[in-house]
């Protein structure tokens, strides 16, 4: 169930350039399930910034009632968020949306998780849950540059992990799609989250296999009421059928919606 709660900051640190890792504690955690869901954060009490910010859940710890997010502090809202200290509270609405369908892959099969930049975080909880299920996981994670790389160690502990950078300052130089090809990675199901051009390339190259993509769109409500975040469906004779990224997604099967 979707809840709204003032959750308490238990940990907050910078883990790469402009990138922060934030752990919050509260009852709302017990509602979290599928990896790939997100929360909607209000970073101040006042009216500026007015809207909530959607951020993916990166790790869930049900026992401690804690969850972790990783976000890029860039605009007005995320910069304010980055100033929160331990014991401060953050207004959280969530969990929202439908995450990655871990039922769509069997124990013993192989999953390839492909992340780009700030799309990497939700794949961590996904990888953990897949590994717990007995799925063999591999990761290809793309970043702009060495200074932007994060979570490498955490992913490496769960499965083979290839890091790519656009500028070649770390790991493989080039796009994640090239890395997948060059390393001749085999998989049963692919899960991905990252910038739209990356998702489009993955869909073009690997759309014939089971492929699940997590999308981003500007949001108003985050719960399906305002129609800010709609996209066209893949098969749409009338042009009026749609899916909402916030409540039907953010994860869709490749081909389900038009990227």
């Amino acid at each position, binding site marked *: 169930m979707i809840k*709204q709660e003032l959750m308490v900051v238990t940990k907050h640190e910078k883990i790469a350039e402009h990138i922060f890792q934030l752990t919050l504690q509260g009852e709302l955690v017990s509602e979290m399930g599928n990896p790939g869901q997100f929360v909607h954060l209000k970073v101040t009490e006042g009216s500026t910034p007015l809207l909530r910010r959607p951020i993916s859940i990166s790790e869930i710890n049900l026992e401690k009632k804690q969850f972790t997010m990783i976000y890029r502090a860039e605009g007005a809202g995320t910069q304010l968020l980055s100033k929160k200290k331990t014991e401060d509270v953050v207004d959280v609405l969530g969990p929202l949306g439908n995450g990655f369908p871990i039922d769509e892959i069997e124990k013993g099969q192989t999953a390839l998780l492909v992340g780009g930049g700030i799309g990497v975080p939700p794949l961590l909880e996904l990888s953990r849950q897949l590994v717990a299920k007995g799925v063999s996981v591999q990761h290809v994670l793309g970043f702009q540059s060495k200074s932007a790389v994060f979570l490498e160690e955490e992913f490496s502990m769960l499965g083979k992990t290839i890091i790519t950078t656009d500028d070649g300052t770390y790991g493989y130089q080039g796009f994640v799609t090239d890395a997948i090809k060059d390393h001749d990675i085999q998989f049963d199901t692919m899960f991905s989250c990252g910038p739209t051009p990356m998702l489009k390339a993955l869909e073009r190259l690997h759309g014939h296999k089971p492929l699940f993509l997590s999308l981003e*769109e*500007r949001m*108003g*409500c985050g719960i399906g009421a305002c129609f*800010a975040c709609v*996209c066209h469906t893949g098969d749409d004779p009338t042009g*009026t059928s749609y899916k909402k990224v916030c409540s039907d997604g953010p994860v869709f099967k490749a081909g389900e919606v038009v990227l």
Partner: protein
Amino acid sequence: MIMLQVNLPGLSLKNPIMPASGCFGFGREYSKLYDLSQLGSIMIKASTQEPRFGNPTPRVAETEAGMLNAIGLQNPGVEKVVSSELVWLEQYDVPIIANVAGSQIEDYVYVAEKISQSKNVHALELNISCPNVKTGGIAFGTIPEIAAQLTRAVKEVSDVPVYVKLSPNVANIVDMAKAIEQAGADGLTMINTLIGMRLDIKTGKPVIANKTGGLSGPAIKPVAIRMIYEVSQAVNIPIIGMGGVQTVDDVIEFLYAGASAVAVGTANFVNPFVCPEIINQLPGRLKELGFEHVTECIGRSWK
């Protein structure tokens, strides 16, 4: 809760608080968060004759104390709204105000006739002021004669009282309101969004795909209060006020200005529980301010 009861043409409201059109869908999402029967009314999303997908995304952008939207009246078409959404809403004890949109008079008439026959639709709200639809619509909201003509046409076919939603993007809101009153409207709702724009500093281009969007939220509250203050003194039909309401004190300010009930739009996105929260706070706040009944606040700024 007798102290919150407000009676308006077609609407016997248990309290004067309702979500504004387009900010609450058809209620399904919020129904998972709280019991919709708590609400005074629900202004449902605009319905048009045919299904509409609306504008390309991005459809929203944030501004200082406000937001821009250009949804473009996405809706499944009046038939589906009636058969599926309104029927679903019947399970709640809440009168519905149906927002009606179109690009020509015939469209409005078609939708109004259909939708006003639904059991739980107790009033229509003519959306003559949506700034995000290119084809003609905006003229209804800025030219008094055309607005009056539309009002008359819809009044003729509607089974329920007709409220007309005013656009703030005019030089003289009082002239507009009077023309609509004379054309037979039962009430007014105001204000719709101001037309605004935001540019991306990196690309130089508009953030919203539709380029311009409707500005809503706390930023526009002073404009709404001013317009309601002026119009409420010039007409004899009631006003449902809206524009930037976030708190119980905002609601009271709208009543003081001359509104008889108040709708909450953008604030639902910020705090999905805002409507029931305000409804719960209202009696206490009214008592604190020395009122015995919510209606005592109405028009207090000029009475």
